[in-house]
Structures are given as C-alpha cells and as structure tokens.
C-alpha cells in the first residue's frame, strides 16, 4: 500500500533562487497556474457573446456573480458592494483549486496550510486595515459590545481580542484540514481495494461514495471560507 502522505509532497519543477530565497516553481505553483487558466476559460466563455437572452454559459457566470452578491448583501449590506471583486476572486480560486484536486493524480493546492494561511491572513489583515481606515481609532469600540456591565468590561475586551486574533487561524486551518483529511482517507481506502482481492468491491463502493462526498466538501469549504470572510468584512465595516 502506498504512503497516503506522498500525494502532498512538493516537487520542484523549475528551480529559481532569488537573493538566497528559494522561490522555485513547484507543482503547487503549476496547479495554481492551471487553476487560473481554468477560471479564465470559464469566465471568458461566459462573457463571450453577451445577449439579452443569455446563453447557458452566460447564465452560469451570472449565477456565480449573484451568489457572491447575495453573500455580501446578506452580511455587509450596501457598503460592502465594492468588495465583491475580491470575494468573487477568492471564492472562484478556492473552489477551482479544491475541485481540480479531486481529479486523480492531481495536486490539491489548498491542502497546504501555507497556502490557506496566506489567504486567511490576507483577509484578516485586509479587513483590519479597512476597519481602521473607515473608523479610525473608534474601531477599538468593536471589542466592547454594548450593554456589558462595567465590572465585566476587561474580561469581555480580552475575550473579544483573542476571538478576533483566532479568526485567521481558524479560517485557514479549517480549509487545509478538510482538504488534507479528505484526501488521506480516500488514499487509504483506495489502498484497501488492492489489498483485498476477494472483497475489493466493498472498499470500491465506499470510495465512490467518498469521492462524491469529497466533491461536496470541496464546494462547501470554498463557500464557508468566502462567507466567513464576508462576515469578518461586515464586522469591520459595520462594527457589529
């Protein structure tokens, strides 16, 4: 049975070293480029011949936009409209990375916590900067919810502060852990298929269900990442 962790190894395709830092083009980078081309192909086809009566591809593009629009309107409201391009890019990138990882023999980009942590930290830092830019020092009033008795105020402030700092970690770890765990389980059960030649049909049936479940998890995790980013954005813009 092959090593289930082998699929997450990085292979350097084009070694690049700049100022002592190893910025090689790895298979992770190759799949990110592939993701970008897949998204460009999808969106390019959907805006190809825009007509009043939309074609199927155009309708799909419009549905994607309405999904993100619904997310932003449901959380941040009107003020969040200018952040739709960012949330759209984030959602499509994570979705396509997750789904491309479901194809056999591909590499799942979002299974590495470095990738997801950068995305989570970008959202966190960006949202904090937006909050400070919009509200100035009044942003700190977010950490003391209205109506707390004065005795509990220090406790509440510390708890809120820690809850705020935990958010990028939980955001990124959720995505990476779901992808990694799903792929490891699939690899292990696939190993069972070859190990038991007599009863191979049972792990194989389980593997079929598991693949369908993993596709659902891939889409769901992309949705959860994006909607939590929208919620954090609305927290910063609207200060509760």
């Amino acid at each position, binding site marked *: 049975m092959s090593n289930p962790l082998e699929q997450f190894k990085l292979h350097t395709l084009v070694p690049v070293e700049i100022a002592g830092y190893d910025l090689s083009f790895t298979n992770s980078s190759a799949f990110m480029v592939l993701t970008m081309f897949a998204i460009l192909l999808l969106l390019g086809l959907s805006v190809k011949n825009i007509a009043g009566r939309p074609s199927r591809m155009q309708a799909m593009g419009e549905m994607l936009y309405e999904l993100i629009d619904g997310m932003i309107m449901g959380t941040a409201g009107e003020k969040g409209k200018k952040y739709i391009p960012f949330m759209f890019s984030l959602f499509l990138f994570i979705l396509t990375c997750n789904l491309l990882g479901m194809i056999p023999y591909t590499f799942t980009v979002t299974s590495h916590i470095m990738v997801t942590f950068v995305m989570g930290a970008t959202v966190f830092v960006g949202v904090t900067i937006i909050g400070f830019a919009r509200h100035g020092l009044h942003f700190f009033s977010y950490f003391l919810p209205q109506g707390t008795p004065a005795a509990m105020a220090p406790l509440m402030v510390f708890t*809120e*502060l*820690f*809850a705020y*700092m*935990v958010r990028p*970690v939980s955001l990124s770890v*959720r995505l990476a852990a779901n992808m990694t765990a799903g792929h490891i389980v699939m690899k292990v059960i696939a190993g069972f298929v070859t190990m038991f030649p007599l009863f191979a049909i049972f792990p194989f049936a389980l593997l079929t269900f598991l693949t369908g479940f993993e596709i659902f998890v891939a889409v769901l995790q992309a949705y959860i990442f994006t909607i939590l980013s929208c919620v954090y954005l609305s927290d910063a813009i609207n200060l509760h």
Partner: protein
Amino acid sequence: MFKQNLVIDLISGLAVGAFIGYFLDGKFDTSPWMLLFCTIFGTAGGFYNAYKDLMRDIKKEEEQKK
C-alpha cells in the same frame, strides 16, 4: 449545515492562545503566568467564536425555512 467548523474554532482558539502565551512569556519573562492567562483567554475566545458561528447558522436555517 456542517458543524465541524465549530470544533475547529474551539481547537484553534486553544492553539492560538497557547502560542501567543508562549511567545509573550519568552519576551517578558513572566512564565508561566502569561501562558496560562493567554491560553485561558484564547480558549474563551475560541468558545465565543464557536457560539457566534452557531447562532449565525441557526439564524440562516430559520431564514431558509421561512
């Protein structure tokens, strides 16, 4: 929806609290109190996050049922 988000909120709350506590201990030499303090508040923060997420999920399901 999926409730595994809540578990990850709790665990990462604990982890971030411990990490920040350990780091602050190294800087201010107040071991082990900083570690204890920050871990407790980090866990509390994680619980608070999980509670907020749960409330948001329940509200979404109620809105969808209407």
